[in-house]
């Protein structure tokens, strides 16, 4: 077994209540690493050519909860959740920071593949070299906070009961879903630690469809042995030095950006992206910091970046709401995107989205979309049961709840922005295009809180348009080469990309080599490993279905809104250049060895050892 791997994976058949240990060959691991890459490969292995026909929320749809070889050893512990995405029909390597990752590794497992569907709510409890399914009926319906509180106690008590004589049992790590996931809200998130989410991909609903409330792990073993331990320890120290030098991140997190991104780079969603600029000083970082940040350096396992800050509302109707910061994405999506510029309201809605188990980006994107439809007269007061208003906390508080519980219009919105557009068009006797122009998504995945129109943010022209993970702002496309060693790598090695930026790439790759012993190079990742993973993801995305197939080129594009001129701010009038998009998209395909419609060529598949895809791709060509 290469270094960095615990060496075994769990395969859980929920229908049959069966748990097996499996291993993967060194070659597979070297080729796909872990997390995002390995999950795509295993998904293919499980489903294969039948991909197009398989409903992602059906029992036969696999769900992967994987670490990677660098998880927990490289700073910034994370877990990668994947499978056939209920929103994109492809796969997303959706990661979240959680102690589950390191606990699972300490317990001796690199990941879990779930198949089937439990007949009643369960959670998986992983302990040292052992795993079991536990009844979760008493947890079903609970919000995130309560789930976490109860599970923590219950599992700690159970472990203490089993082995009372080792001293105190430390709390386990866990991921879980809230009501949104349970009720199969298509873009619901998998949550961890009350405010961390694997949001993109909608894997919360996939967990919900399997009656799987949570995955919990507590291991007492070492982190996996590595190929070159002394080098790893030195690199570990060096990496932390880089992280500790990032004073702006440590001081401000991303929570200063809700004001700065809007005011400066003009790329923040405002009222469902009708604007991307604001200069609302009330929404500035210091206003959050001074009144709400009760812990200013907050980190996950083995991380000194401390991008997180614990926020707590101490007074008023939302007293007791707790979240992280909110980070920039939720500041934007649960704030400005709702026309809300009050830190307290923003914290409340972020905490609410988290507690309900929504993705704080995707769910609120849908909510914003709905309110714009109302603004445009497409949805009425009656459709909502009240009069929705921008900037009104009650409005969005209600919509988020209605979605999570599929009540009223919430039942439609629960299908995610893209599908909801079709359903509402049908309801209202309109053409889908009339609604889709307000739907800010790419390939079913709502776009992260970074616009492309000002061209002043890190997201540009084909960032989303070409990404195999659609609107996912954590995995944007650039040129099909440089981006391969970015998110595609971190999501497969599985660590936080906030511990990646600011550390020299050569150091990260040396770290990977020291851990795994693979003869890998930066160039190798950019030209072979990365493209292999992305090409496989692309293939799955194109196979799509059932009832949903993305059209090459046409769907490899930005949402219509990104081509409207910015209406305000320093970049007023500016917009995304369609000609540049077209041209860069072709270059991107070219670089990756895909044809001019973005379909991988036979040669490319062969070169990347992906010949198993040829049959399916041939059909699409």
């Amino acid at each position: 077994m290469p270094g960095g791997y615990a060496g075994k994976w769990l395969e859980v058949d929920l229908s049959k209540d069966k748990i097996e240990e499996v291993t993967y060959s060194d070659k597979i691991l070297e080729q796909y690493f872990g997390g995002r890459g390995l999950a795509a490969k295993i998904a293919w292995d499980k489903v294969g050519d039948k991909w197009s026909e398989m409903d992602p929320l059906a029992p036969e749809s696999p769900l992967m909860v994987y670490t990677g070889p660098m998880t927990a050893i490289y700073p910034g512990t994370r877990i990668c959740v994947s499978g056939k995405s209920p929103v994109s029909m492809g796969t997303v390597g959706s990661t979240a920071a959680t102690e589950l990752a390191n606990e699972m590794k300490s317990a001796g497992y690199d990941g879990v593949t779930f198949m089937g569907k439990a007949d009643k709510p369960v959670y998986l409890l992983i302990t040292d070299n052992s795993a079991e399914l536990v009844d979760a009926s008493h947890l079903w319906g609970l919000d995130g906070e309560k789930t976490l509180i109860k599970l923590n106690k219950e599992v700690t008590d159970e472990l203490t009961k089993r082995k009372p004589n080792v001293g105190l049992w430390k709390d386990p790590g866990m991921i879980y879903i809230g009501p949104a996931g349970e009720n199969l809200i298509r873009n619901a998130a998998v949550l961890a630690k009350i405010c961390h989410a694997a949001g993109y991909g909608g894997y919360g609903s996939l967990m919900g469809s399997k009656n799987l409330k949570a995955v919990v792990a507590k291991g007492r073993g070492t982190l996996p042995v590595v190929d070159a331990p002394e080098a790893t320890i030195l690199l570990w120290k060096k990496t932390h030095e880089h992280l500790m030098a990032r004073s702006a991140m440590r001081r401000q997190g991303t929570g200063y950006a809700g004001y700065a991104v809007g005011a400066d780079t003009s790329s923040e969603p405002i009222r469902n992206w009708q604007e991307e600029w604001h200069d609302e000083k009330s929404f500035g970082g210091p206003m959050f910091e001074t009144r709400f940040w009760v812990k200013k350096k907050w980190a996950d396992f083995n991380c000194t970046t401390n991008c997180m800050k614990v926020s707590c509302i101490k007074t008023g109707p939302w007293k007791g709401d707790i979240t992280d910061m909110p980070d920039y994405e939720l500041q934007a999506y649960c704030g400005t995107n709702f026309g809300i510029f009050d830190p307290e309201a923003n914290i409340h809605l972020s905490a609410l989205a988290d507690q309900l188990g929504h993705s704080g980006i995707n769910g609120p994107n849908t909510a914003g979309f709905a309110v714009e439809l109302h603004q445009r007269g497409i949805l009425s007061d009656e459709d909502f049961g009240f009069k929705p208003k921008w900037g009104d906390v009650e409005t969005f508080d209600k919509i988020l709840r209605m979605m999570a519980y599929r009540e009223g219009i919430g039942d439609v919105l629960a299908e995610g922005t893209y599908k909801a557009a079709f359903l509402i068009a049908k309801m209202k006797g309109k053409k889908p295009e009339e609604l889709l122009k307000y739907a800010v998504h790419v390939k079913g995945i709502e776009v992260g809180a970074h616009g492309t129109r000002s061209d002043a943010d890190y997201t540009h022209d084909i960032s989303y348009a070409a990404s195999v993970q659609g609107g996912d702002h954590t995995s944007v496309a650039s040129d099909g080469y440089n981006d391969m060693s970015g998110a595609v790598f971190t999501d497969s090695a599985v660590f936080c990309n906030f511990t990646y930026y600011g550390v020299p790439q050569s150091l990260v790759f040396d770290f990977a080599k020291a851990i795994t012993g693979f003869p890998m190079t930066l160039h190798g990742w950019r030209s072979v490993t990365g493209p292999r993973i992305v090409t496989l993801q692309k293939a799955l995305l194109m196979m799509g279905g059932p009832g949903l197939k993305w059209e090459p080129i046409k769907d490899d594009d930005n949402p219509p809104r990104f081509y409207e001129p910015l209406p305000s701010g320093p970049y007023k009038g500016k917009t995304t250049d369609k000609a540049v998009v077209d041209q860069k998209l072709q270059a991107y395909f070219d670089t990756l060895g895909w044809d001019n419609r973005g379909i991988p060529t036979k040669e490319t598949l062969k070169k990347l050892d992906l010949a198993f895809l040829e049959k399916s791709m041939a059909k699409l060509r």
Partner: protein
Amino acid sequence: MVKPIWISRDYDACSGCRRCELACSIHHEGWMWPEASRVRVFMPFPGLEVPHLCSQCQDYPCIESCKFDALSIDPDTDAVIVDREACTSCGLCITACPGTVPTLHPGDNKANICDLCGGEPKCVEVCVEAGYNALTIVHEEPNIHRKLYSRNPVDTARDLAVKMFGEKGLEVIE
């Protein structure tokens, strides 16, 4: 000469990064092994992080309790030293400790207690380096307060919760 030292803990300042555990286990085990670390950061609710380690009670109830004389006090640092050969894994030290600090090592099942790394605790080094100062070294004579830090970390977290979250803090730990 090493003088008696003590590791002061400022719970509010702990980020939960758990580098202390990694540094401790790298020092003692040669590799990253959180559960074998002599300091463990309990985190019963997000934001409530409680580094849990030996607080060197003035009266060393753990040492008193050991029937096999496997525990002793390091004359230089005042740390509790475990004679792993003599230890029978009986767990008496764990029960005697008011904070249930010792654990049985996940590898050899022997009593596991902070030995202050012989006077230069690695956990403190990485914590100070990172600017948290949740763990810092104090040079002082043993005092009676130390015993009060030997407390169940979940109880400590309950107190911390109220300070951080106000009334909500009463609800976050079951």
